[in-house]
């Protein structure tokens, strides 16, 4: 059912250093991205979802980070690539869109220059051609007066416009993959809808695969083809969007869906997950990581070393505890 696989992550571990000790923020994640697909990675803050994005093209500060595993892009493992090798991929093959559109643009540079920059390093276009390309990119992301916008500075644009500019930067070299890290979290809901529509429209135009990282299950439901749900550095459930929302299996996924305040009966109580997300340092590295949050489920229901089980063609769940999971009364 899927087209060609364009990115494969195998057993990715990304660890951060605290006081000379490394702690895995991403702990053995394997994922694939297919052409034309929108894959959503969803989870709460600190679950490691953004860390995956940064690990793919080595955007972390190498002095404090240790990455291992395999990241296969066009038949090559890029995980140990040097900065120079990675710079051939970044921006050209893989485009990025970040959360805070104001902070993500250089305040002292004109918009046009910031879009042009990736063209300088990845194309042979001359100055005039690059300028034309910048204008056409701004048009493509739905900016009305591209010539004017190209000469403006970031602070002169609205939040939605800035995010369009970031999208134009990500698109500039027609990448095969776009990684969007919480692209609409800082925006108003009406602007969010416009940006998401723009993103899915553009995806069809350039046939890219998109990795959308978000905490918003509504956005996932509206956008994603496939969804990976993350908890404490691991994928706990991986399924097509339709399957995940219709038939969520993992206790964490089910609990999250129950705590969304969207129900039509305002009298109902929202579901609350017991306890707290453990910090990176105190994370138990063995057993089911969600077990402490559902202490009323018998220990025997959990696997000793939980792995992702395939339950149907497009549905994977970690651990066995989902089989006998029920909500607490």
């Amino acid at each position, binding site marked *: 059912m899927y087209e060609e696989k364009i990115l494969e992550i195998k057993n990715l571990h990304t660890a951060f250093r605290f006081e000379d000790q490394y702690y895995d923020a991403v702990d053995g994640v394997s994922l694939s991205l297919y052409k034309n697909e929108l894959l959503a990675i969803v989870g709460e803050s600190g679950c490691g979802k953004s860390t995956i994005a940064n690990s793919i093209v080595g955007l972390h500060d190498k*002095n404090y980070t240790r990455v291992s595993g395999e990241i296969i892009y066009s038949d090559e493992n890029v995980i140990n690539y040097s900065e*120079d090798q990675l710079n051939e991929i*970044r*921006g050209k093959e893989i485009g*990025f869109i970040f959360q805070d559109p104001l*902070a993500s643009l250089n305040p*002292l540079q004109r918009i046009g220059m910031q879009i042009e920059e990736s063209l300088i390093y990845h194309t042979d276009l001359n100055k005039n051609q690059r300028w034309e390309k910048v204008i056409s990119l701004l048009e493509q992301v739905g900016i009305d007066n591209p010539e004017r916008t190209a000469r403006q500075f970031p602070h002169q644009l609205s939040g939605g416009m800035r995010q369009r500019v*970031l999208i134009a930067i990500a698109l500039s070299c027609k990448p095969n993959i776009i990684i969007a890290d919480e692209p609409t979290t800082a925006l108003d809901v009406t602007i969010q809808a416009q940006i998401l529509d723009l993103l899915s429209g553009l995806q069809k135009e350039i046939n890219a695969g998109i990795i959308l990282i978000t905490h918003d299950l509504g956005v996932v439901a509206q956008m994603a083809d496939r969804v990976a749900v993350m908890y404490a550095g691991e994928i706990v459930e991986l399924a097509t969007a339709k399957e995940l929302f219709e038939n969520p299996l993992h206790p964490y996924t089910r609990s999250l869906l129950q705590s969304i305040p969207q129900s039509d009966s305002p009298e109902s109580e929202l579901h609350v997950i017991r306890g707290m997300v453990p910090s990176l340092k105190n994370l138990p590295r063995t057993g089911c990581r969600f077990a402490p949050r559902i202490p009323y489920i018998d220990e025997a229901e959990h696997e000793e070393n939980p792995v992702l089980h395939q339950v149907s063609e497009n549905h994977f769940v970690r651990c066995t505890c989902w089989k006998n999971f029920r909500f607490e009364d």
Partner: protein
Amino acid sequence: MWKTVLRRFLIMIPQLIILSVIVFFIGKMMPGDPFTGLITGDTDPAAIAALREKAGLNDPWPIQYKNWISRILGNGDFGKSYTYKMQVSTLIGQRAQNTLWLSLLTLILTYLIAVPLGVYAGRYQNSKLDKAVIVYNFVSYAIPSFVLALLMILIFGYKLGWVPTTGSVEIGIQKGTAAYYGSRFHYMIMPAVTSAILSTTTTIQYLRNEVIDAKTQDYVKTARSKGVPTNKVYSHHIFRNSLLPIAAFFGFTITGLLSGTIFIETIFGYPGMGELFISSINSRDYSVMNALVLLFGVLTLVGSLLSDIIMSIVDPRIRIE
């Protein structure tokens, strides 16, 4: 942009007037007047009174102020120095030249040392170089300027004898010759290096912190995600943005070139503005003191004007459209 500058300039006019009035009254409050020095045992008080009357010292103060300010604006006439027996304006002109050359050399040395050190220390944070820079900064910050100056004189002036310890030029050299300029440069080296060492501290500290801060900014991450080579990320995104706080002070730095440094000039016996200020205070040379206070005040105001203009050039967020 020009509107902003013009408005900023107009705001300066009342500031200048207030400054000049204050300086005028400080002058008035000083004991004695230009004729006090003429009084001897057999001076006729009536003659002095007549001289005072003639000089306009009995006029009401607004008229006196008007005369004073129009002499300054008209011919740059600040009166005569008692100690040097020459026009104050000529005297300040000579000293300002000395100070300007010394300060310029100091400034160039400061930036030559501070900018690369600050940027590299920030870029390679926690490296050996960075740690060395931190130690250097602590030492140059902690050491009192006169201690450093005396050490320099002791080591390079007396022990090694590389440079002269006092003055601004060798006596007896023909003005305008190559040897004359060479000698002036020779005399300037030690005070310039000393004062550069002292002034690098803040610049290095600012730059290092700004670079470390900028490295973690989202726009730097965006630049890296575009595939911009690391060196270009530093030169195009981090470096320029880190220079902002230094640019904010640059106007003051420029006008500061003329006001000189009191400590350095005094210790090295360098005949500049700072040294002139101190000696005019010590010898109660009021007309010189007055002129200098006015000049320093004007320089500060112009410095803040320049800083504002520079900031509006380098930071688009401050520009008023």
